């Protein structure tokens, strides 16, 4: 312990340098992981179902943007060969203003037809952290995403007002680091009411009686599942072929679309991560090597007193391990602190910028320790190749 204190005191500036380098590396890595998890989560979702919307433009948003998808069309979809189940959905922006245009994901209201099991193969049910998920027959209750709940301080039993109507929060989802984190999920009947309340055109249309619409026709889309052994793309193409007036998203196409639309962010953060790795790595290696070179005179003196390569190698290994571990852990702690502060601020607008996975933290620590030790070993090798007299002269 005394030895560790001596090392920490003697290498205070080196440790500070490593701390800052590792903190930068971890913070950028956590931002990169966040975006990767978001994209992977979205990809997993769209590959788990066939998303269908009515042809045309409408109020719908999210994965099922398009026109109305009437009940009769949904019944036709269910009859297509290979289809295992169809769940009607209403997806609406919680706040339909342009101010949310630049957000990573909008806050959405998702209305689900609870008489049908969720057809998404990757999300048979959404993971609930507290309370329960919606049940058939529920009305005026909501299950909210983790970010949505955090931004508004909501928990099970909280009250929520949507389009002037009161809702009770019965469940909060686990943090999924993807779209549902910002969802409010309600029974489809409640979502339909909200849709009508939001959309003056729809109000006018319904009031005029010109269109033969019932509540069951007010769907922005449907999630379609496929039978075991069926190719989802083939089922999707079959729906497109057999059912008129629908926009069918081919799962693999949608996945490609999602990836290409987020490619910029992926590339940006991958680039930033790589840059952080290079800059942080160089800075760390340079700091560690410089710390050894600074002590060139000490090495000369130690050799004069009889230190062999093994003695010096062991000392440097022990010291560099202590220094890089201390600096690495402090850097991780600093990054976690910064992340917590920034995410605390971002949570007010339902955002989360960092994801500190155990894999990232362990990787950053291992990276800093291995690189630091390697740099120190290289510098030591250079120093011990000098004669003791030369080392003392150069360090004078």
């Amino acid at each position, binding site marked *: 312990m005394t030895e560790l204190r*001596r090392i920490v*005191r*003697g290498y205070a500036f080196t440790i500070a340098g490593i701390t800052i380098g590792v903190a930068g590396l971890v913070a950028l890595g956590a931002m990169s992981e966040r975006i990767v998890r978001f994209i992977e989560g979205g990809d997993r979702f769209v590959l788990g179902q066939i998303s269908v919307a009515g042809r045309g433009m409408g109020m719908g948003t999210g994965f099922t943007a398009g026109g109305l998808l009437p009940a009769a069309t949904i019944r036709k979809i269910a009859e297509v060969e290979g289809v295992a189940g169809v769940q009607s959905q209403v997806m609406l922006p919680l706040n339909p203003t342009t101010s949310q245009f630049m957000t990573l994901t909008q806050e959405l209201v998702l209305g689900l037809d609870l008489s049908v099991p969720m057809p998404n193969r990757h999300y048979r049910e959404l993971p609930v952290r507290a309370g329960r998920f919606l049940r058939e027959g529920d009305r005026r209750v909501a299950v909210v995403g983790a970010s949505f709940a955090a931004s508004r301080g909501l928990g099970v039993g909280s009250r929520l007002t949507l389009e002037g109507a009161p809702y009770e929060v019965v469940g909060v989802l686990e943090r999924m680091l993807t779209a549902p984190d910002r969802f409010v999920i309600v029974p489809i009947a409640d979502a339909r009411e909200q849709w009508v309340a939001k959309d003056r055109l729809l109000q006018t249309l319904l009031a005029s009686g010109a269109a033969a619409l019932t509540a069951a026709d007010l769907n922005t889309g449907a999630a379609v599942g496929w039978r075991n052994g069926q190719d989802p793309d083939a089922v999707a193409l079959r729906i497109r072929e057999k059912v008129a007036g629908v926009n069918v998203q081919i799962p693999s196409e949608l996945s490609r679309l999602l990836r290409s639309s987020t490619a910029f962010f992926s590339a940006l953060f991958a680039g930033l991560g790589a840059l952080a790795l290079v800059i942080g790595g160089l800075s760390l290696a340079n700091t560690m090597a410089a710390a050894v070179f600074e002590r060139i*005179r*000490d090495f000369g*003196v*130690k*050799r*004069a*007193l*009889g*230190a*062999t*390569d*093994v*003695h010096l190698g062991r000392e440097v290994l022990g010291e560099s391990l202590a220094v890089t571990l201390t600096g690495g852990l402090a850097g991780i702690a600093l990054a976690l602190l910064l992340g917590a502060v920034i995410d605390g601020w971002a949570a007010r607008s339902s955002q989360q910028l960092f994801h500190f996975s155990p894999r990232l933290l362990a990787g950053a620590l291992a990276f800093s320790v291995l690189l630091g030790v390697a740099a120190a070993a290289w510098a030591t090798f250079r120093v*011990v190749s000098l*004669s*003791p*007299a*030369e080392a*003392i002269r150069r360090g*004078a």
Partner: protein
Amino acid sequence: MLRAAGLVKSYRAPSGAAIRVLAGAELTVKEGEFVVVAGPSGSGKSTLLNVIGLLEDADSGETWYGDERVSALGRNGQSRARARYVGFVFQSFLLLPSLTALDNVLLAARYAGRRGPAARRRALALLEELGVADRKDHFPPQLSGGEQQRVAYCRAVLNDPPLLLADEPTGNLDDANGAVILEGLRRRARAGAAVVVVSHRPEAATGATAVYRLRDGVLEA
């Protein structure tokens, strides 16, 4: 104890020209002898001491510690020979700033494989003998020059080396502190060590068994 024969050492000047510092120097020092090497600055005294102390290699020539031709050893072999045979006292003390006075003294035991309570007891006794025991927990920058050299002297003699090499040991000291260090070295010689002191100060030669001058790279009596 020490025998150096035909030591030749040259340095390369910035112009590329070779500067010959040692040109076949010969030196033999027996156990119990106190030998002083004098000469003006730049005459090569420190180079001689570095070569016979295995701190740098000669271009040619041999150095023997007892029956062992140590100049032929490899890097780590020479390190082990230094730990076993040699104690150094340098003009600029060369204490490690990150260690306390006591830890600096104990450093010599560490590399000689003599760590333990006995080494610690001896280090404390030496610091007491040199009058710096109360400074044992101080770091070098907290010590005066005289105190630092006393600590460095304790480090040099901790392992009771049979050969003591001192390079201008009083060069940075006042007369009183210089006298303490020189007397310590003479005492070691009386106790049986072979002591070589390089100095341009006349008082260093007091009590010397032999005084040499280094002139044109060769030692002259």
